[in-house]
């Protein structure tokens, strides 16, 4: 397994001093080279789970491993094995896309030659050429998202953790991102991504995880989900799992 999480618990203290349990014993496994889609309404705990797997947050209980490395014991090594795309996908406003990519390549310790090769590859695949030398604050949402994805994957990690990678994008930009992710699937990358778009989860994922109120409500391949819920379509399965709120 490329990514394993076991009984992850996480609580936050609100500004009123109240403890809010966001994750309640979440366990999941992502096979190497497979794509897992994470679905759930707002507040289900998707972002918190992804942040824990990206080593940004520590679980209160439970443990997680990426490529055999414990997140608790080796967070710095884990960060070299993953790419993390936040749901805002913001870039440095006053740096150009090229400068941002160069900055992260330095943080990842990529030799200049490797960086140039990666830059060329990503520029072609994500169609960055038109705005490579444009500042972050002068990009459209779609451009930012593509540049952020390039930034995340620059060091060619085996595991991609993506929080709503198509958030706020139009159809064309979404298609471009999905095509890019399909290409990564073919390369054998392990992908865990969250989304509110059922079609893209349906299209990309070999495994789907339904998260609700910090717990896993259902998991499995699409056919397994349909079988478990007794529904005919993915959309109906979602409505069945979230009767009060449809994501």
């Amino acid at each position, binding site marked *: 397994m490329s990514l394993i999480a076991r009984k992850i618990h996480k609580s936050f203290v609100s500004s009123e001093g109240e403890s809010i349990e966001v994750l309640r014993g979440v366990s999941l496994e992502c096979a190497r080279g497979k794509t897992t889609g994470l679905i759930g309404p707002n507040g289900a705990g998707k972002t918190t789970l992804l942040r824990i797997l990206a080593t*940004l947050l520590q679980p209160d209980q439970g443990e997680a491993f990426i490529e055999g490395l414990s997140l608790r014991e080796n967070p710095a090594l884990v*960060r070299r094995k993953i790419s993390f795309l936040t749901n*805002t996908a*913001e870039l*440095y*406003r006053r740096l150009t896309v090229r400068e941002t990519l160069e900055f992260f390549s330095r943080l*990842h310790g990529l030799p200049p030659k490797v960086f140039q090769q990666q830059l060329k590859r990503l520029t072609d695949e994500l169609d960055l050429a038109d705005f490579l030398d444009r500042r972050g604050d002068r990009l459209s949402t779609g451009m930012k998202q593509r540049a952020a994805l390039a*930034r995340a994957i620059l060091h060619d990690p085996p595991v991609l953790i993506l929080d709503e990678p198509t958030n706020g994008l139009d159809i064309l930009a979404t298609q471009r991102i999905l095509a890019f992710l399909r290409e990564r699937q073919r390369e054998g990358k392990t992908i865990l991504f969250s989304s509110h778009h059922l079609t893209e989860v349906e299209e990309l994922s070999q495994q789907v995880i339904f998260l609700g109120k910090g717990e896993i409500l259902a998991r499995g391949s699409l056919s397994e989900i349909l079988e478990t819920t007794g529904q005919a379509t993915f959309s109906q399965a979602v409505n069945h799992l979230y009767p009060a709120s449809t994501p």
Partner: protein
Amino acid sequence: MKSGSFTHQTWTVFRKEAKEILRDKRTLFAMIGIPLLLIPGLFLLIAFLAFFFLQEAERETVFYALDEVRVESFPALKAINQWDNWESRPLTHPREQIESRELQIVVQEQKTESPENEKIPRLQIFYHEGEIRSQMAAERLHQALNQWIEEHQAAEWESAGLAPERRTPFQVERHNLASPEKVTGGLLGGLLPYLVVMLSLTGAAYAALDLTAGEKERGTLETILSSPVAREALVLGKWLLTFLASLLTSLLTLCSLGILLFSVPPLLFPQAEGSAHFLPGFDVGALLGTLVLLFPLAAFFSALLLLIGIWARSYREAQSYLSPVFLLALLPAIVSTLPGITPNVFLLCLPIVNVCLLAREMFLGTYLWIPILGVMGMNFLLAALALLLTGYFFRKESVLFRY
């Protein structure tokens, strides 16, 4: 007001914004608390401290010397022997003794000729224009002598029908004995360190907030935290830039002020004899010394502001924390410019005050090397502690993800 009209929309937006602002405790504090409580409190405190330090200065011993004065000609002078805290000292080199503050005043007798060639004794009080104790002593003696003349002599002489210019047994004059360098040094020493300290804080503030609260708000902090960069490296990188911004702001301000003070007056007043005429006390050594003293303080400011920035949920929240920080820095900076205040162990232990006081001493020509090294060491230690705390906050998720 018609519903849906431009005015109605404006009013609706205004009400919503007002509601939001009034529910924001930080903004309320900045809007109401600071002007109503903090500012009056600050000024009261400054007034109290000014009064306190003037009282202290008054209580301190005044050392004086009489230079060829025939005391029998000036009976009023006999009284100063009985004044509390006035002590006579031998006179060797009047100017040096006054400039070094070994003596506060020197009284000298000189003869002058009256309009009718009658000799009227003249008393000259020499003092240091840039030193408050010296000024106060000169003022007190001057007043006392004049009062004596008024009470004991003038009325009798008037009744004797003497002309006004002859109704005095002696004349009293005050003269500044300190060189212009020392006087200007006193003025610049009070102003420049204060200015430099405040600008160092201003220079650091906006960089620090943009690099922490700004990044947090824009979501780019999360991105960099998930990269392999060590948290310590991240903090140090941000701190270095803030530190540099702080120093650069101070340095550029000093340079521009220096250029302004040296170049503009000769251009405006070409009849004057060069720039030295305008800034006789502009000691480049003291200026460089101030910058060196500022290093650890700027390091401390930078770490402190990063700490505030990372603690804040947003850029706006961080900005609201800035006002109290500026006021807190302003108070000690002002305290150090108060008249009569001199470095002592307690004051040298107070950040900002210590730098301002030692810098002022430098401009007055006194380099207190051991206190300078001690203060620099202490401020470096404070900077290190603040930096360690910032590093700790950068590892604390409850701070980093405090939305």
